[in-house]
C-alpha cells in the first residue's frame, strides 16, 4: 500500500552540533524519493530518525497520521525495512537464514516460521536473483551479492516503506543500477514508498522521480529533477560549480562538475593548440590536450556538434558554422586567424567530405608560414573519406612539412617539444 510520511521541524543535535536543523518535508504514499546532499548534510541521520534508530531532539515524524513514537518496535519493523550502506556479516549464517530474519517482526516468541514465511522468503530471493545462493554462507559472498541478500531480507519484511542509506556506495556500476531497479520495481509493483539517500546524482535521476536536497540539516529544495538539480542548488549544497545538461543518449538530466571552468577563466601558459573539426572523432584529442594543459581552440563545427559543446563547456574559442552548409569566406578567414594564434594545429581523425575539404587550403597557408601541423591516423583515412580526395590532399600537406602521427596519444609530446624549441616553453619560465 505504501504510507505517507510527514516530517515536521525535525531537530537532532550531536553534542552541540546540530545535524538536523528543522528538517521539513512530506512524502506521499508510493513516492520514489532520492535524498540528495553533501556528506554531513544529514541524509543518514534523517533516515535513522525515520527508522527510529535515533531519537530526534525535536520535531515530529508522522506516519500515516500517527506519531512515530506511538508504534512499538515490531510494528515499525512491519512497516519499514532498511537497507544500509554496508552490512558486516561476520557470522556463518546462510543466505536463507538472513532473508528469513526479515520475518522476525511477524513471529511471536518461540513461533516457528511456517510455510507462508518460507514462501515469502523464497519469492524474495527469486525477485532479487539470489535463489542459487540460498545455502551459501553470507560471509563468503561478494559485496554486490551481499547487498542483494540484504535487499531480499527487506523484501521479506513486506514493508510499506523502504529506506535505503547509500545502498550502492560500495557496488560496481552493474550492481548499482540492479539494486536501484529492484527498489523501483518494489515501488511499481507493490506501491512501496521508497526513500533512498544517494550520492551519485546522475544515477539517482535514472531511478527516482522525486528529489529532496538536504543542506546543513534542512531541505534546500524538493520536487522534480529539474526543480531540484540546478547549478545554483548544487553550488549551495555541495560547494562546487556544476553544469547540468540533458544526456545525449538517454535525454535524462545530468550533472557534471568535472573540468568546468567559468567564462573568462583561462589556463595560464602551456602551448596553444587548434583542433580542426569536431564530432566524436575529435573529442579524444580535445580531452587529452585539455588535460595536459594546452590552451585550445576548436573549429569549424556546427552548433549541435559535441566538439562545440566541449568548447562551450570549457569556455574555449570556437568557430561555429551552420549545419549542412559549406563555409563561407568569413568563416574561412576567421579560421585562418584562429590557426595563426595557435602554436600547433591538429587534424584529428575526422571524416572528410566535399563540405570540409576546403579547410585544407587554409592549412596549407599556415604550413607555409611555418606552423606545426599534426595529422593523426593518416593510414586509416580511406575508411572515413567520402570525397575520395582526402588521402592525396593530406599527403600533399605532409610533403610540405606536416607531421603524421599514428595515434592521439602521441600528440602531447610532440606539441610540447615543438613549443619548447620555439622558445615559448618551460625552460624560460
Amino acid at each position, binding site marked *: 500500500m505504501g504510507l505517507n510520511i510527514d516530517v515536521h521541524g525535525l531537530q537532532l543535535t550531536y553534542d552541540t552540533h546540530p545535524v538536523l536543523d528543522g528538517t521539513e518535508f512530506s512524502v506521499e504514499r508510493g513516492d520514489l524519493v532520492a535524498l540528495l546532499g553533501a556528506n554531513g548534510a544529514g541524509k543518514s541521520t534523517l533516515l535513522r530518525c525515520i527508522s527510529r534508530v535515533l531519537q530526534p531532539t525535536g520535531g515530529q515524524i508522522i506516519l500515516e497520521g500517527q506519531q512515530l513514537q506511538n508504534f512499538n518496535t515490531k510494528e515499525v519493523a512491519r512497516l519499514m525495512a532498511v537497507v544500509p550502506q554496508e552490512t558486516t556479516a561476520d557470522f556463518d549464517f546462510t543466505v536463507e537464514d538472513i532473508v528469513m530474519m526479515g520475518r522476525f517482526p511477524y513471529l511471536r516468541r518461540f513461533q516457528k516460521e511456517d510455510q507462508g514465511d518460507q514462501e515469502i522468503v523464497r519469492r524474495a530471493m527469486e525477485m532479487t536473483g539470489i535463489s542459487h545462493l540460498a545455502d551459501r*554462507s553470507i*560471509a563468503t559472498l561478494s559485496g554486490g551479492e551481499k547487498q542483494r541478500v540484504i535487499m531480499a531480507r527487506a523484501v521479506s519484511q513486506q514493508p510499506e516503506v523502504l529506506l535505503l542509506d547509500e545502498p550502492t556506495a560500495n557496488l560496481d556500476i552493474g550492481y548499482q543500477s540492479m539494486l536501484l531497479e529492484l527498489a523501483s520495481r518494489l515501488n511499481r509493483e507493490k506501491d512501496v514508498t521508497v526513500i533512498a539517500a544517494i550520492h551519485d546524482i546522475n544515477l539517482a535521476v535514472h531511478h527516482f522521480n522525486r528529489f529532496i536536497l538536504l543542506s546543513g540539516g534542512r531541505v534546500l529544495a524538493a520536487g522534480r529533477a529539474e526543480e531540484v538539480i540546478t547549478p545554483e542548488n548544487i553550488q549551495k549544497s555541495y560547494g562546487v560549480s556544476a553544469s547540468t545538461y540533458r544526456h545525449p543518449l538517454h535525454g535524462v538530466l545530468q550533472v557534471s562538475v568535472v573540468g568546468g571552468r567559468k567564462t573568462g577563466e583561462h589556463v595560464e601558459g602551456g602551448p596553444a593548440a587548434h583542433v580542426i573539426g569536431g564530432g566524436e572523432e575529435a573529442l579524444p584529442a580535445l580531452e587529452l590536450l585539455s588535460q595536459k594543459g594546452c590552451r585550445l581552440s576548436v573549429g569549424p563545427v556546427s552548433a549541435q556538434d559535441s566538439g562545440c559543446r566541449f568548447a562551450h563547456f570549457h569556455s574555449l574559442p570556437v568557430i561555429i558554422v551552420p549545419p549542412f552548409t559549406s563555409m563561407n569566406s568569413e568563416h574561412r578567414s576567421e579560421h585562418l586567424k584562429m590557426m595563426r594564434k595557435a602554436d600547433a594545429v591538429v587534424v584529428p581523425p575526422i571524416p572528410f567530405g566535399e563540405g570540409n575539404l576546403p579547410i585544407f587550403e587554409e592549412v596549407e597557408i599556415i604550413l607555409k608560414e611555418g606552423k606545426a601541423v599534426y595529422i593523426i591516423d593518416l593510414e586509416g583515412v580511406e575508411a572515413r573519406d567520402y570525397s575520395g580526395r582526402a588521402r592525396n590532399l593530406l599527403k600533399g600537406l605532409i610533403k610540405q612539412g606536416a607531421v603524421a602521427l599514428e595515434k592521439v596519444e602521441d600528440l602531447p609530446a610532440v606539441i610540447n617539444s615543438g613549443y619548447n624549441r620555439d622558445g615559448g616553453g618551460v625552460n624560460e619560465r
Partner: protein
Amino acid sequence: MAVLFMLLVFSTIAAMVWGAVEIAWRDVFVVLANTLPFYESVAGTEITQVYRDILLQIRVPRVILAAAVGSSLAVAGAVFQGLFRNPMADPYVIGISSGAALGAVFAMLGGFSLALGGFGAVPLFAFAGGISTMMLVYSMARVGRAVPVMTLLLAGIAVSAFLSALVSLFTYFAGEKLHMVVFWMMGGLGGATWQQVQVMVPYALAGYICVSFFSRELNAMLLGEETASNLGVNTEQVKKILLVGASLLVAAAVSTSGIIGFVGLVVPHFVRLVAGPDHRFLIPASALLGGSLLIATDTLARIIIAPSELPVGIITALIGAPMFIYLLKKRRKLRYFGGGG
C-alpha cells in the same frame, strides 16, 4: 542434539563409575534405581553402604553440579560472544569473575563464619561480588538510556583489571591462606553437596530460561544493533535481559566452583564450527556440551592422581585446547566468524 544428549548421559555414567574407588556400572544403576520410591530393590542388598554413600552423597551431587556449572559457563559464553559480536568474549569478559574472586578472597582472608541457609561465606561473597561488578560495569557504560556494547566491553575490561589487581594485592598478603586462595581461583568441584545443588541449580535454570527466550533476538543482534532494531528487536531491553541472565549464570557458577576457564570460551565455538551460529540451536547445544565436558574433565581430575585431586580448570584447558585447535585445522576455511572478522 540427540548426539549431545547421549554424550551427557554417557559422561554422567562414567563419572559415577570412576573415581578414587571404582564402582561397577551395574551397581550404579541399582543404587540409583533404589532411590526411586516405587522401585522394589532386587539385587541391592549386596552393595555395601559405603558405595551407596559414595554415590549418593558425593558423586551424584558432584555430577549434577558439574553439569550445571559447565552448561552455565558455556551458555553465558555463547551469549557474551553473540552480544559483543566478539569471538574472544568469554563468561568472564565483563569482570564478573574478578568481582567474584575479590568477594571470595575477602571472605577467606576475613575468615568470616557467616552462613546463610547452610552456605559458607565464600560462595555468598563471591556471588555478591560477581553480581555487583556486573551492575557497576553496566552503570559505567550507560550513555543516557542506551548501553553501547563496545563501551560495555571496555568498561568490563577496565573494571576487571582493577579488581584483579586488588585480588593480587590481597593474595600477596594472604600468608598461610595463600594455598586456599590460589586453589579457589583454579576452580574445582571438590566437596560438592546436595545443598550446593539446591542453591546453584535454580539460579542456573533461571538464567538459562531467561537467555533461551531471546535466542532469535540474539541472532538478529549478530548482524549489528542497528539492523536488529530495524528488524523489530527492542535492542536495549534485550541487551539488559541477556546481560542479567548471563551474569546470573556466571555468578552462580563461579560462586560454587571458582574460576573454571576455557569451557565458556571454547564450547560455543565448538558448536558453531559444527552446526552454525543460530542461537536457537547454539544455546541448548552449548548447555549440553558444556555440561558433558565439565563432567568428563572433572572425572579425570578426580582419577588422574587419585586419591588426590587436580583442579579441574587445568584439565579443561589441557584437553579442550588441543581438541579445539584440531577442529580449527580441520575446518580450514575459518569462515564461521568471517574471514576478516
